[in-house]
């Protein structure tokens, strides 16, 4: 089993070139505090991207995971406030479970009615967001109401360093969770039967069925895992920014999909690696965060992200080019 395949090497090279370039434009990029903050911005998008990667390998696309993240985060934080509960493990389990259950809904509809995932997930996203905002509430849970344990958890650092002027900065411990999740996903995708069935289903659903894979089970695994990761990432996000905003993550799904495509996954399914996705997320976050360092006006950010997505899909489309007949 090779750890690196060719596509991943190309992505890593692009990343290196981009880093060198940004570093030349503004040497402040290489300051440890900037690198640490970049890594921190990777965590939430990266966790969601792992779920989207799974969906894309299976040949689908998911635009509902941000709504699931909001549901996991907001329901859990609001109930913690209401019940006056302070803890870490149980809330995260609940958020993950909420995301997983909502993912089960996606899997059920897509598999049962054999319907295009994009349209199903557009629908479920609207359903979930509408219910959360309409029934649970629209107000933020601010830092003064946020459960203390969550805040304390979110600000845990692995390493703390001191700047020349005495202020401190650190590398967030959440990065360890992200790395662990990525490693697990890599092992599941490459070493287990269910992981291989995702690739098989994405490459050709009919063939996967005839070989004997239970495709219904594969779909449930794919969409539940994607939902669970989103629910977990949602709560993690709120514990890192000390705020639970039910209108959060709007439009983030495009960034995450862009990152996964940048990482070399194919929308036709059957292709994609965890390492590529992790690198893709890093490239996207780095370029978004470095526009200011490079002196580019922030209004250009959407254009840059869109252009990057187009460039990435063009490259993958040329690679995956297949004849119509």
């Amino acid at each position, binding site marked *: 089993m090779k750890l690196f395949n060719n596509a991943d090497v190309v992505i890593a090279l692009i990343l290196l070139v981009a880093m060198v370039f940004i570093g030349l434009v503004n040497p402040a990029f290489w300051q440890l505090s900037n690198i640490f903050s970049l890594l921190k911005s990777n965590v939430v998008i990266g966790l969601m991207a792992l779920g989207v990667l799974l969906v894309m390998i299976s040949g689908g696309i998911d635009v509902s995971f941000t709504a699931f993240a909001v549901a996991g985060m907001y329901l859990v934080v609001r109930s913690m406030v209401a019940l006056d509960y302070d803890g870490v493990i149980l809330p995260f389990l609940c958020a993950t479970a909420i995301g997983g259950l909502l993912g089960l809904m996606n899997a059920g509809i897509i598999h049962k009615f054999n319907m*295009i995932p994009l349209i199903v997930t557009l*629908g479920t996203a609207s359903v*979930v967001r*509408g219910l959360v905002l309409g029934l649970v509430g629209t107000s933020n849970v601010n830092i003064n109401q946020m459960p203390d344990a969550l805040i304390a958890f979110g600000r845990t650092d692995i390493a703390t360093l001191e700047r020349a002027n005495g202020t401190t900065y650190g590398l967030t411990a959440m990065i360890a969770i992200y790395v662990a999740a990525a490693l697990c996903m890599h092992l599941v995708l490459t070493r287990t039967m269910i992981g291989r069935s995702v690739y098989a289903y994405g490459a050709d659903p009919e063939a996967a069925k005839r070989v004997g894979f239970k495709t219904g089970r594969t779909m449930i695994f794919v969409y539940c895992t994607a939902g669970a990761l989103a629910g977990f990432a949602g709560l993690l996000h709120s514990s890192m920014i000390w705020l639970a905003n039910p209108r959060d993550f709007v439009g983030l799904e495009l960034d995450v999909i862009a990152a996964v495509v940048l990482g070399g996954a194919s929308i036709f399914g059957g292709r994609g690696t965890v390492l590529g996705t992790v690198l893709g997320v890093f490239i996207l976050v780095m370029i978004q965060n470095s526009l200011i360092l490079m002196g580019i006006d922030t209004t250009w950010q*959407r254009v840059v992200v*869109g252009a990057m997505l187009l460039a990435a899909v063009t490259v993958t489309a040329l690679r995956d080019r297949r004849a119509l*007949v």
Partner: protein
Amino acid sequence: MSQSGTVENDGVGRLLLRSSGNTNVQLGVICLLILAVMTALRPDMFLSSYNFESMAFFMPELGILSVAMMIAMLTGGIDLSIIGVANLAGITAGTLFGYLAGEAGAGSLGAGAVILGVGVGLIVGALAGLLNGLLISRLRITPILATLGTGQVFIGLCLVLTGGPAIVGFPAGWTWLGNGKIAAIPVPLVLFAVLCVALSLLLSRTSFGLRLKLIGTNPKASLFAGIERGRMIVWSYILTGGLAAMAGILLSARTNAAKSDYGASYLLQAVLIAVLGGTNPAGGKGNVLGVALAVISLTLLSSGFQMMRVSNHLIDFVWGAFLIAVIALNSLRGRKGR
């Protein structure tokens, strides 16, 4: 579908049986049902002319966007960039007016400038559609990803042009497009009706429409039939882009403002209405009348909900649930038909 079960002399029964296969008749019945229920719940408010007039002003934007989505779906594609295109058209025109009028303020501009603005807006839409079409047909990028990316770029360009806040203050002639009336009928509604008739003829009575549907029905067969697939797809996305720009022009004309994130919720609704109107997202099936009926019934529905003071978020929930229910029903019916 078995036709043999009911050999009755009853003409009404036969009519019902025959019509149950026709989506458009079903939609018409749904329309009337919603109208009846809403009237029963809120007779004094729902049936007021004010209510119908306000619906007639804001429905055409959504209707045109839905028709645009339907045309993209005919070839088996989808256009997720329509909202970006719509806003870009409105904002380009607004920027142009600001540039033309200078210090005097855009309100002083005459009819010539308005016509120029409409032309520029439509050209922007067509160019955006051309870009989508070329990406999809020449580079063979999946429509979902291509239009997702271009949509980002278009919204980004809107932000660059406006710097964030809304452009306000359009010429009087421009706002007439969104708020005026021709013989007591709102201008947007007239435009929508004209567009519907024209597009309906284009899709059902010309070889262009037939070829578009064939590409969606069976790409391989269309290739063997000698249809230039690439060129047809480019034209269909140009048409989609132009229609989206038209919707953007109406939106900015009605609100007298243009902003990068106006109408963001229209995207899902346009997909929903196109699917509800009998369009097959996998391609090959779709008609303008169905989409028009679907947009009317959903406008009635959401207006009724608003009158009963249901929160906007719950209306979003209803839209999403409706979409899923419709595809589930279509799928079950399709299975029975086979």
